[in-house]
């Protein structure tokens, strides 16, 4: 696609073509990089039978921000692919978990590094690879392993997606992205894995040629639609994370 015309005026406009049944990856890890504004717009957009790929469906902490769990509550999700279908602490309950336990939503539980590598593989044209992770565990039961140089490895397949929704710090009009600190996490990999990448951008979008070509985290080749985040309260911005009351 052309480097022109990547800047969109609203989150709704940027996702108007997302169909029912789409596979969508959501960036973010424990806050930074999470596309709160795009997720909120997707709740309103209403596409159904979605497959959602993310590290988590949303944490057990407060204040709660738009997350995959809300899409589940809103009846929009058929399946999630993630590294947590339950919280790490058995005393926490993710909003998603009861839906999964009742069988209302499918889930594919994937180790976090395998999830990242499967996204990267999709973006790098690698259809499958071997990994040492999860060998000998319940996750490997009935699946193909292979001994290479005397060690067993599990075969994993690329995880492509139709759309990636991510959040970045800065962008230029050509779609080149910079992330700030741990905002980077899965975002560059999801942009690689997606056919269409939507980005909510924290800083005002810069003219092409403003960012140093040596300091681009995600080249514009992987980026299709940019939406600047309006100031609060219209736009959603990170707030201090609070643990859910015990």
């Amino acid at each position, binding site marked *: 696609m052309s480097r022109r015309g990547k800047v969109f005026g609203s989150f709704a406009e940027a996702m108007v073509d997302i169909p029912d049944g789409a596979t969508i990856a959501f960036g973010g890890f424990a806050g930074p990089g999470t596309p709160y504004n795009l997720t909120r717009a997707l709740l309103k957009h209403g596409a159904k039978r979605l497959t959602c790929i993310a590290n988590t469906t949303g944490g057990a902490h407060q204040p709660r921000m738009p997350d995959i769990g809300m899409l589940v509550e809103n009846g929009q999700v058929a399946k999630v692919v993630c590294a947590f279908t339950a919280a790490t602490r058995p005393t926490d309950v993710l909003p998603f978990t009861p839906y999964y336990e009742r069988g209302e939503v499918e889930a594919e539980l994937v180790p*976090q*590094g395998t999830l990242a590598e499967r996204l990267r593989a999709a973006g790098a044209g690698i259809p499958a690879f071997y990994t040492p*992770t999860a060998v000998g565990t319940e996750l490997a039961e009935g699946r193909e392993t292979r001994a290479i140089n005397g060690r067993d490895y599990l075969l994993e397949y690329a995880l492509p997606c139709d759309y990636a929704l991510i959040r970045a710090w800065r962008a230029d009009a050509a779609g080149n992205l910079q992330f700030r600190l741990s*905002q980077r996490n899965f975002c560059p*990999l999801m942009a690689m894995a997606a056919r269409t990448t939507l980005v909510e951008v924290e800083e005002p979008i810069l003219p092409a040629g403003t960012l140093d070509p040596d300091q681009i985290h995600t080249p514009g080749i992987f980026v299709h639609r940019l939406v600047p985040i309006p100031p609060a309260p219209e736009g959603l911005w990170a707030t201090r994370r609070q643990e859910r009351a015990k």
Partner: protein
Amino acid sequence: MNAPSNKGWDRQQMADRLAREFQDGWIVNLGVGIPTLCSNTDIGERDITYHAENGVIGYGPVLPPGEEDLHLVNAGGQNVSLNPGAAIVHHADSFGIIRSGRIDVTVMGAYEVAANGDFANWKIGGAKGGGIGGAMDLAACAKRVFIILEHGTRKGEPRLLRTCTLPVTARGVVTLVATNLGLFAPAGDGFAVRELAPGVSFEAAQQATGAPLLPA
């Protein structure tokens, strides 16, 4: 099975004991919960690089409220600081560091550890799902896997066992275990006792353990 769970080391002491095993120059990954306390331990001039799964290499102490940078969290979601020489990478590169064996030690919590080095920390009994996060990658690939856990459950059942009863996170990988009762090393048929916490007898520890203990 009657060892009171408040006997021996407290949480910080368990973390301290493992942290003192860290050697100069190590790359260390600390799991959520008690393991994060390892970074509080004074181990002198040893140069330790803390790695978090989300691509933060070289993070430092958690910042107090009001001083956080909301763009920066460690794997536990805490707003940490960066030490000089820190670097940020994306998730695939971060797990590339893990899988290629660059992590000298990962310290994790667990529900169970077995004498054969298996451990379980992602799924509780009877649950449909679980929380894996980066634990399986770290467990399968770090040079050393250290586990911190209470020696027994709240009901007094042992957590150090001959074989795990819960679905395992990785097999044969645990090298060292700190509990409130002491420091133990999986040794195949049992656990080698490396050290006992003050006031804990070998017999009391053996009674609280679901596998033979081997004297040091």
